[in-house]
């Protein structure tokens, strides 16, 4: 599996994501700078966590309009598995590839801890490996992870299996405790928690590794 990690000024989880992808797939991902217009064909695109463009205007707002994102949006809409974690999730909502928006945490605190989550949909390419494992633990580290969408959108997301993960308790005010959402087609996932930081026992667990293994297996 060939993958790419998009790097923006202010990304700070790009290397974590690259290490996780290399450990799981055996291949070093292509690191793509935000000013690129095009990059090699890959099987998987990762948008890392961090504070791209210093969170200016809104988290992910500037990155969502960068050169490289035009190509990422095109490929995501063409069906390439695309994964945004934390700031990457914020970028995907800002582009409109994923519905909703991520707002300042309701209690205004930066939350940084391991959190239990439920896997709401195990049919996607990202979550198939979680079948039979309803609850997992993955770390979060964010100030703006309060997922918002209007009620109709939330009902639709829940009804159509687009909610991938939910926190088991309210940690940031997110509507219906949503931690991760899929696009309609199921090839794009955005989530606030960091599975790339939970890929081996030395990091505290392996629940995150399963996500990358699921994608790898889905590609055959």
């Amino acid at each position, binding site marked *: 599996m060939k993958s790419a990690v998009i790097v923006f000024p202010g990304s700070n989880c790009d290397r974590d994501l690259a290490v996780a992808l290399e450990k799981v797939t055996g291949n070093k991902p292509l690191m793509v700078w935000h000013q690129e217009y095009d990059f090699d064909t890959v099987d998987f695109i990762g948008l890392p966590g961090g504070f791209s463009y210093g969170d200016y*205007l*809104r988290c992910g*707002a500037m990155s969502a*309009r960068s050169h490289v994102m035009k190509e990422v949006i095109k490929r995501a809409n063409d069906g390439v598995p695309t994964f945004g974690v934390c700031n990457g999730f914020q970028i995907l*909502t*800002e582009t409109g590839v994923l*519905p*909703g*928006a991520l*707002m*300042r*945490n*309701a*209690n*205004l605190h930066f939350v940084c801890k391991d959190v239990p989550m439920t896997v709401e949909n195990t049919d996607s390419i990202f979550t198939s490996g979680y079948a039979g494992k309803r609850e997992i633990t993955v770390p979060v580290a964010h100030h703006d992870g*309060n997922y*918002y*969408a209007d009620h109709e959108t939330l009902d639709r997301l829940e009804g159509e299996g687009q909610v991938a993960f939910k926190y088991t308790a309210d940690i940031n*005010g997110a509507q219906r405790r949503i931690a991760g959402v899929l696009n309609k087609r199921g090839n794009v996932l955005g989530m606030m928690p960091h599975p790339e930081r939970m890929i081996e026992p030395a990091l505290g667990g392996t629940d995150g590794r399963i996500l990358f293994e699921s994608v790898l297996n889905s590609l055959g």
Partner: protein
Amino acid sequence: MKARIHVTLKNGVLDPQGKAIEHALSNMGFGGVEEARQGKYIELDLMETDKEKAHASVDDMCRKLIANTVIENYSIELE
């Protein structure tokens, strides 16, 4: 021409920073503030001299970047 843009959270969208301002004011002894909502103010200097064209262009800027219309409203004043 100058464009003055106000971006505010839509009604019904929780504004935790506005809430914090409200609480701080109350703790400081300022009574009578029923609610505080925080927003953004952006000023643009435009080369355009035609008001109608300027409005159309700034409206496009607001929809495409300055506001996130999932959660925010915006208003434009031209001068």
